[in-house]
């Protein structure tokens, strides 16, 4: 690792199923992008890669390997020569791979043939920023172990890098606590703006504060379980959409739950992105 850029974390598909121990699921925020990167280099889709925030990553190959960069559309350079993202690339020993700045979106995924083989914790190599489980954030000078290549890089046709729009329309299922708010669907519609306080724990949104119904005004909710995609509304009225590193329980009402299919787009939503919720029961 020559330069991690603003933030580079090892991520795989996380450690779901441990919420009863207070352990967040964690894992790549843009799951389809990590799976694709792994397929492109011949890995099982569940192998660990690097989730790089806002590009800037630079790594040098200590051994010959196949790599692929997916997720946010980003310039990829090998020894300074522009190459494509979303394609398998061969690196010879000593060659340097560098990412520019993504044109849209936030997170790029770097897969290496064999996968990043750091020691797993709780059956996963994912870094969980809330609980500080898993390998620490990557730093310049780190040497990342790579496992033995397990398969053949997938012969992909040309894949167009996705473009992440500045406005999102996100379907949300109302409940379990939508009855804490008058006309929950209309209030939740927004428009909301993604704030810079957002991180892997959750997207924090700014907009017209949600008002609780009068009889719930000062009520407290005993701690209850939280799943990824939950839209929680603290007393400020400004919702948080929980992402992979969310706490396993919380005491503010969850007004609705975002569909799993939309999570990748939310994980790529830059601060300033406009967001509307379309609700269904």
């Amino acid at each position, binding site marked *: 690792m020559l330069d991690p850029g603003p933030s580079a974390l090892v991520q795989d598909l996380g450690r*779901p199923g441990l919420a*009863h*121990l207070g*352990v967040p699921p964690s894992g790549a925020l843009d799951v389809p992008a990590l799976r694709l990167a792994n397929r492109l280099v011949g890995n099982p889709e569940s192998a660990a890669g690097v989730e790089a925030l806002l590009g800037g990553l630079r790594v040098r190959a200590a051994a010959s390997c196949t790599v692929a960069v997916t997720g946010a559309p980003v310039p990829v350079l090998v020894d300074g020569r522009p190459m494509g993202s979303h394609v398998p690339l061969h690196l010879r020993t000593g060659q340097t791979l560098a990412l520019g700045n993504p044109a849209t979106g936030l997170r790029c995924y770097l897969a290496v043939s064999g996968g990043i083989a750091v020691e797993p914790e709780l059956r996963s190599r994912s870094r969980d920023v809330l609980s500080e489980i898993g390998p620490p954030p990557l730093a310049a000078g780190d040497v990342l172990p790579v496992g033995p290549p397990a398969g053949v890089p997938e012969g992909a046709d040309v894949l167009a890098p996705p473009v992440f729009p500045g406005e999102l329309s996100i379907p949300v299922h109302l409940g379990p606590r939508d009855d804490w708010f008058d006309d929950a669907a209309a209030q939740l519609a927004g428009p909301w703006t993604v704030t810079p306080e957002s991180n892997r724990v959750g997207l924090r949104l700014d907009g017209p504060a949600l008002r609780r119904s009068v009889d719930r005004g000062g009520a407290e909710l005993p701690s*209850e*379980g939280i799943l990824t995609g939950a839209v929680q509304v603290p007393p400020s009225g400004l919702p948080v959409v929980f992402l992979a590193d969310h706490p396993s329980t*919380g005491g503010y009402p969850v007004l609705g739950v975002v569909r799993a299919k939309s999570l990748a787009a939310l994980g790529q939503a830059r601060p300033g992105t406009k967001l509307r919720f379309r609700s269904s*029961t």
Partner: protein
Amino acid sequence: MRWLPYGPDATLIECSSLEEAGAVRAVVAAAGLPEVTEIVPGARTVLVAVAPGSGGLAEVRSLVEAADLDHPPAGHPREITLDVHYDGADLDEVARTAGLSPAEVVDLHTGAEYTVAFTGFAPGFGYLTGLPEPLRQSRLDSPRTKVPAGSVGLAGEFTGVYPRSSPGGWRLIGHTETVLFDPRADRPALLSPGDKVRFRSLS
């Protein structure tokens, strides 16, 4: 009991008491349904998630509705004793609030048997029920920005141990050297829902 929707693949089962929530958790956990991916107990609720598209929620519902919640399956609770130095910063205040001496607070706290009702807040943090009535006290008006790892605290109907240093608003009555959470261990969390816990005084 109310069944609240939580997206297409989960349901929040709202119960009338902590005991009922504990029984529902035990029933669902003991059944070991393969479709069930998460069982997250809360103070009055149990959140159950199933594999997307498995349709497993219907099975969960018929299972719980057919269960005898007055006699839930015991599961395999562990019995854990935690050795505590009762030297917490709030011990004297807890005693004053309860109208007791600090020694009587220790006697009450060590004399009770607790059950891990649910976890949350941090990995390995168990909310333990069974706290004697006089020790059921409100949280601190102003939470501490840093509570040391191993601190034994109480708040409301719960007592518990901070697995690691974090902010917190519970009243601190002591500390333990026991490791509550180790992600590299075979059993990462010492306390799981349903486990029985006792405290023993080292002071």
